[in-house]
């Protein structure tokens, strides 16, 4: 590999290290819980299930295969998607405060899910999928509305307009959510808990949906590292060096929205992952998106799997909302990292 190519992307060594990190974290998260099992047992059970053999009798297999594994898989994929979206949006909009929710699509998706819960919407043939389907539908409708408004306000699709429209739409959707909650009666507790985010009861189907979204839309973002570098330096500069600014921006926004829509539909609104994880990763990899995007994706997976582990074990048997855990850990980790960096620089 020539010098330039190795400088631009993650080295094979870094890929290996992070891949192993993700797998080990997943294994630990699957093993630990109300019943903690040795890592070896977990590994053996998973391997047997993957190879299609009938697992041994006992309490381990059903817990591992039906409950914990789909949940850990969903946590990892959601974390990866949220973090990737955050990293891409921070570069695209050249704004360190941006994340997947900046565009307002996550608020739209939440509104859909909350409406489904308040009205008790059911989808024929898909039990309990009402909120999920409505969230995806509303995410899509929100994206169309936001892009239409941004284009109507400013034909050039400027970054400022997109952020402004996103913030206004988020507030609007937020007030509608409050309105729905005010009239939701006995569904109040369910809605409130959902809005804080939870991956309890995640299924393999949901995991598959997340995987498809991450592979298709996330994959698209991952190969746009060079373009996002140019956006992070400046949109006008991106135009001058030959990037199709409007097209790349539109494509990236659609990809982010699709992933956020699917993510919200499965785990609710999980804050902070998309904001903080890319920041911490950027401190290590630098701002080059060819390194930052894959590293943030894998780090996001690790971060959310560990946050979910903490959410279900810290005050067991009571389960904490995962959004609360991500915010607590994320904020304190970020402050610690910044302080350590300052101290090292001063030294």
């Amino acid at each position, binding site marked *: 590999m*020539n*010098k*330039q*190519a190795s*400088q*631009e992307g993650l080295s094979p060594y870094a890929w290996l290290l992070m891949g192993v990190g993700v797998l080990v974290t997943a294994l630990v998260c699957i093993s630990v819980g109300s019943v903690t099992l040795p890592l070896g047992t977990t590994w053996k059970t998973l391997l047997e299930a993957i190879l299609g053999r009938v697992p041994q009798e006992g309490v381990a297999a059903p817990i591992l295969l039906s409950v914990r594994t789909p949940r850990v898989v969903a946590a990892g994929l959601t974390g990866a998607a949220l973090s990737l979206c955050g990293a891409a949006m921070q*570069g695209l909009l*050249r*704004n*360190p405060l941006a994340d997947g929710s900046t565009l307002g699509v996550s608020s739209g998706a939440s509104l859909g899910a909350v409406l489904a819960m308040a009205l008790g919407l059911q989808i024929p043939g898909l039990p309990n999928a009402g909120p999920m389907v409505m969230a995806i539908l509303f995410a899509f409708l929100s994206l169309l509305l936001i892009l239409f408004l941004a284009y109507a306000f400013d*034909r*050039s699709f400027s970054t400022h307009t997109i952020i402004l429209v996103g913030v206004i739409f988020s507030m609007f959707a937020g007030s509608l959510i409050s309105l729905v909650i005010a009239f939701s009666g006995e569904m109040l507790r369910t809605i409130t808990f959902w809005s804080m985010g939870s991956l309890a009861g995640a299924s393999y189907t949901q995991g598959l949906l997340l995987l498809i979204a991450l592979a298709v839309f996330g994959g698209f973002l991952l*190969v746009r590292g*060079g373009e996002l*570098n*140019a956006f*992070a*330096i*400046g949109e*006008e*500069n991106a*135009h*001058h*060096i*030959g*990037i*199709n*600014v409007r097209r790349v921006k539109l494509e990236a926004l659609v990809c982010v929205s699709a992933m956020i829509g699917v993510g919200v539909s499965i785990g609710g609104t999980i804050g902070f992952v998309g904001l903080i994880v890319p920041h911490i990763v*950027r401190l290590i990899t*630098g*701002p*080059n998106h060819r390194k930052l995007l894959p590293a943030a994706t894998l780090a996001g997976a690790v971060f959310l799997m560990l946050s979910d582990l903490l959410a279900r074990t810290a005050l067991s048997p009571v389960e904490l909302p995962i959004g609360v855990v991500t915010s607590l850990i994320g904020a304190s980790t970020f402050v610690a990292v910044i302080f350590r960096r300052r101290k090292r620089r001063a030294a």
Partner: protein
Amino acid sequence: MMLTASHITLKYGERKAVADVSFSLQEGQWLMVIGPNGAGKSSLIAALSNTRPFQGKVTVRGQDIRILPPRPRAQAVGVLAQHQALHYAFTVEEVVRLGRYAHRNGWLAAHDPQGEAMVGQALQWTGMAELRERSVLTLSGGERQRVFLAQVLAQDPAILMLDEPAEALDLKYQKTLFELTDVWAAQPGKAVISVVHDLSVARRFGSHALLMRDGKCLAQGTKAEVLQPKHLNKAYGMDVGAWMRTLALPWAGYENGQNGNNQV
């Protein structure tokens, strides 16, 4: 013909920043765009590079700039813009290497030895080679200007557009910049358009000039035709020659080892 601009008008709201400007540029020419503040010089560059919507028509090597796809457009026209605000700690080399984007088409084009040579050359020319690993956030204004100059040189466009390129540069790099641009414009298939404030630079370098005021073109042609008192005094609303001589006077005798005549 390298570039033809016909009846260019660029508006901000109702205000015409550029009003019906037409000119053409041939291979080997270096056009100096001059004029007072607010004359529309940078807006003209924005129109010529299709950075902002404009009325009229710009053709580059016979092709309409509006329908030219982004990559071929960037191969034809490279712009060094004013004021580059930076937010993230990219290295100097990462920013300069982005200049090769237009020449790297497709995923398999990452291996680009010729491009790497251009990047190295551009870093050398601009004196940034030793700072290639430095974060752009730690650089001074002049050094940042040199990074983006290196980027546009690495881009290797047919027409180089420089918008007040010397603004933040010290004397050494002003000299390097203009001498380098002179060599650049003399290469086959190249031409330069630059916005400059320093009329001494416009007199010393460049082959042609376009004088603007209030968005309109007051004079255009060869340097000798445009840089005349009747045009300059009207554009700037002052005796330009007298002021330039006043500035040059303290340097008389400086070469002879005396401290020059600094008491004017």
